[in-house]
């Protein structure tokens, strides 16, 4: 497993697409910050930091390198070369999952750090005790998005298709939940809580613990378990 992880990390370090997307992501932060009104009394550093995360472009941009990274081995034939040497499919799958998760989290943390630095430079410095839980909750939400992107890429195996699906599926799920809500009108219950975007938005809006937050926390753990479990099953049964 150690060798497989090293193999995957060696690939990650050379993946230009990660650096390009990281640059794009940080550039978006700067553009977003530049157009924001720094003189507005309601805009402070914490507000900018949270609202940029809510803007959630970060979840779209990161889908690209993750899908390319995961699909690359299958597309170039490296997967056959490695698996043909008797390497366990499960181990190869989890090596890919762990390395892509670490890369994803680094990507997110670097973008968040850039956003925070930009926020405290340009806007009135303000911080309260919601900042640390906010960061953890957002990371939990993005952990769910990573599992989704990883599962889609593993199952589809073609990066163009995987990128398109990774971007579309959260929106499709949100639309389906809206439709379901329209058809089945339940009192005191919104189907929207199942949508990925709603889960992330619940985390972003965090001020104090509530029922929605509990639901979102549970789902952001249940979804990755389901996605990774399903993707693993598909992968080990897959034939090259």
């Amino acid at each position, binding site marked *: 497993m150690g060798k497989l992880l*090293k*193999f995957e990390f*060696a690939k990650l370090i050379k993946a230009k697409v990660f650096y390009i997307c990281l640059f794009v992501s940080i550039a978006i932060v700067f553009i977003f910050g530049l157009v924001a009104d720094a003189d507005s009394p309601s805009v402070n550093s914490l507000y900018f930091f949270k609202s940029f995360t809510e803007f959630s472009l970060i979840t779209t941009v990161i889908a690209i390198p993750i899908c390319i990274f995961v699909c690359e081995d299958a597309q170039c034939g490296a997967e*056959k070369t*490695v698996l043909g*040497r008797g*390497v366990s499919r499960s181990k190869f799958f989890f090596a890919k999952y762990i390395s892509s998760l670490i890369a994803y989290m680094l990507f997110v943390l670097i973008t968040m750090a850039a956003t925070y630095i930009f926020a405290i430079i340009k806007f009135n410095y303000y911080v309260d005790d919601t900042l640390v839980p906010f960061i953890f909750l957002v990371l939990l939400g993005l952990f769910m998005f990573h599992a989704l992107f990883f599962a889609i890429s593993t199952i589809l195996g073609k990066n163009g298709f995987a990128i398109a699906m990774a971007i579309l599926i959260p929106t499709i799920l949100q639309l389906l939940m809206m439709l379901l809500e329209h058809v089945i009108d339940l009192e005191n219950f919104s189907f929207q809580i199942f949508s990925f975007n709603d889960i992330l938005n619940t985390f972003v809006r965090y001020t104090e613990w509530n029922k929605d937050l509990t639901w979102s926390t549970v789902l952001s753990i249940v979804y990755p378990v389901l996605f990774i479990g399903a993707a693993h099953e598909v992968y080990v049964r897959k034939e*090259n």
Partner: protein
Amino acid sequence: MEYVIETKNLSKKFKTKLAANNVNMHIEKGSIYGFIGKNGAGKTTVMKLILGLLRPSGGEITINGSEDLNKQRARIGSLIEDPGIYKNCSAFENMKRYSILFNTSDAEIKAILKIVDLDKTGKKVAGQFSLGMKQRLGIAISLLGHPDILILDEPINGLDPAGIKQVRDTILRLNKEKGITFLISSHLLDELAKITTHYGIIRDGVLLEEISAKELMDRCVTNIKIVVDNPEEASKLLQTKKLINKYEIKDKAIYLYDSLDHPELIVEALVRDEFKVYEVSKNESAFENYFIERIGR
């Protein structure tokens, strides 16, 4: 006989199609086994089954006499369909990346790149390589970790004559110098015939025949057939006149296996001694015909 790869009734079914049908394959240690069949005959399927890239529908595989296949597969290098190279990396970087899995030193990487004649490609990325260079890099990757066996699926497909020669020379060198056993699939009979020691002929998923190159040559040797009124007497005459040496008589005809360059001298001698010559024919494409009869047109 020591077989490095042996299959017993190996089968693979894709929905309704039986891509490999009770294949019993025997690959001897140190041999170059040419796997011959038309496109879609089942060559790649059998290779993938051996490598564990496909799950068999039935049958058994043993590698180096063992059924612990994943352990034994660590001793097999392969090049199946795509060479498995990262286009944004140089030849050395590609090898270096894979070397993580096989504990290979930089010195060994350089030595392997020299074997496949890619040691002077420098920083040129693999995406800019010619098809032949990519194939050779694929072979180089498959050589990492000192494999005993190499499985190469159509390694000369799409290569120009120079590229074919380079790959062929590499295979021969590795077989002779390192004792590596090869399983090579191809539908290019002439090219395969230059290196192969054993053949397996597959058609519609069925392994029709396994034959050594020597047995094949014995069966497919070029000959001249002479149909004459008294073959026994005629052959004695030709021997006395030292016109023939190696021959056989069957079905009232003389089959000559030497003196093939001047059939006119033989006919002249027979006619002068008043033998009646009904037919003289030269069978030159026995080798190709042998395969075509089996694999189908």
